[in-house]
């Protein structure tokens, strides 16, 4: 009685490319028939096969080609710093595909992507998927400053940029730029897809709600297993005394489903 849908495979690193000061793209060789991801799904990556650091880390899929997977990440601690220094041929263990993905089945015309910082991760694949489905796309990207904007070549020309310090694009938060644009032109039948820090997601969800636009958010958390077992990645469910698990019920949620702190 087996329902094999998740795989845990040892994969050789092909390359690690530095794309911004603290941002890297890891490319691994993998059996992509097994490790096949939908946009915004994630993998648990064990950065080495020793016991230190002990736990795997969750990473959103950034891109996949036949036999290759890409993950984009910022260096923030022990695991990501080790990952940034991987050489070709080094081994990592990848468990996936995990979690749900954005809902694209609904009848909407325009997808509004809102990324904050490394929250760009799930949007390369989503952007391409939206285009394939014949949707219009608007692409918002907020960063602290102009040096922290990761350019996705195929989508770059669409970018509406905000920076906290005003060094590029709109001076302020990305939710404010979104609100300003929506006041000017309200797209028909839109849907917001957002990923970034919780404060940014909160502000974006409020803007979306104000304009009556459904909003899906991609969340992250500390987690040990990614499989709904360790129960580390809890988030408050709206109007309820219960928790949802980011790894199991998410990482994508309707913004009205959960309470962001």
């Amino acid at each position: 009685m087996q329902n094999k849908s998740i795989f845990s495979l040892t994969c050789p690193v092909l390359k690690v490319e530095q794309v911004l000061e603290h941002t890297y793209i890891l490319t691994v060789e993998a059996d992509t028939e097994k490790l096949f991801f939908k946009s915004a799904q994630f993998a648990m990556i064990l950065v080495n096969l020793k016991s230190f650091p002990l736990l795997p880390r969750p990473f959103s899929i950034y891109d996949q080609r036949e036999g290759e997977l890409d993950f984009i990440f910022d260096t923030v601690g022990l695991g990501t710093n080790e990952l940034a220094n991987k050489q070709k041929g080094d081994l990592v263990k990848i468990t996936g595909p995990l979690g749900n993905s954005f809902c694209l089945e609904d009848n909407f015309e325009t997808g509004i992507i809102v990324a904050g910082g490394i929250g760009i991760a799930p949007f390369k694949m989503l952007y391409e998927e939206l285009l394939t489905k014949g949707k219009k796309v608007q692409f918002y990207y907020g960063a602290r400053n102009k040096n922290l904007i990761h350019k996705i070549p195929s989508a770059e020309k669409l970018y509406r940029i905000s920076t906290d310090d005003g060094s590029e694009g709109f001076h302020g938060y990305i939710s404010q730029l979104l609100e300003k644009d929506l006041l000017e032109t309200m797209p028909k039948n839109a849907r917001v897809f957002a990923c970034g820090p919780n404060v940014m997601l909160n502000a974006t969800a409020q803007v979306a709600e104000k304009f009556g636009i459904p909003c899906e958010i991609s969340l992250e958390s500390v987690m040990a297993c990614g499989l709904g077992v360790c129960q580390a990645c809890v988030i408050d469910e709206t109007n309820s005394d219960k928790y949802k698990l980011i790894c199991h019920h998410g990482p994508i949620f309707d913004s009205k489903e959960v309470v962001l702190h």
Partner: protein
Amino acid sequence: MPNISAKIGKLTLKNPVLTASGTFGYGNEYNRIYDVSKLGGVVTKSVSRYERKGNKPQRIVETPSGMLNAIGLANVGVERFISEKLEFLQKLETSVISNVVGSSLQEYVEVTEMLEAQDGIAGYEINLSCPNVKHGTAFSSDPKLAFQMIQAIKNVVKSDRPVIAKLTPNVTSVAEIAKACEDAGADSVSLINTLIGIVIDIKTRKPKIKNVTGGLSGPAIRPVAIAKVWEVRKSVKIPIVGIGGIMTWEDAIEFFIAGATAIQVGTANFVNPNAPLEILEGIENYLSKNKIENLSELVGSLEV
């Protein structure tokens, strides 16, 4: 092929590799990765009388070669366990051991009685030792209370299902508690549960875990666990289920030599989901290579 079955009370496990409660959900999660029926048994997430939400986040933090957790026994409660989780477990071709927890002796007894009425459960592990809930370790810190608890549970278990007492290492003498459990009729003891620890964020001077303290698990605690198994082995005759930082088959062999009849794989499930299977395979190879016909020959064979 060596005989790798393991006897716990009247229950014969087809092999000695179990999964530790709280690290394996209700079995279905890992069955998406491999056929969990290959294991010697599955120990479920703790089941309490009523659903428990668990502690506020942050609930886990990584430590050197380990992790600290304070989940707080979040679980669906015995009624939903029976209505939602048991059907899957009943289909498994392996021994399902329900981990039972409560906030009073009465609750432990009620949960056990409710599970006694169900098919497809092979045994009970009585969690006397959760460090992350109020009074969680009381029953495992006082030999009299441990005795009362196990006796009360044995009174309601009419089936052949073994009662395994899961013990905390956070006491002066775990051997004394183990002996009390044996005297009360426990069929086995499992140890160790996690060691209590704190990690502090020196920038904020706050504990990294909201609950302040958490339970330390992972390879960091393995030598402690092995010492406790060895200590308990000298004071009880009932079989010991060894737990604590088992990542590889070599680790499991150490536990057998120290005196464990079976072992549980815990934190390793998070690190390497296939760990229990790899450990099982490694144990078989080790026995074959060393021409050991019965795993039981290895149990407690430490030469000092």
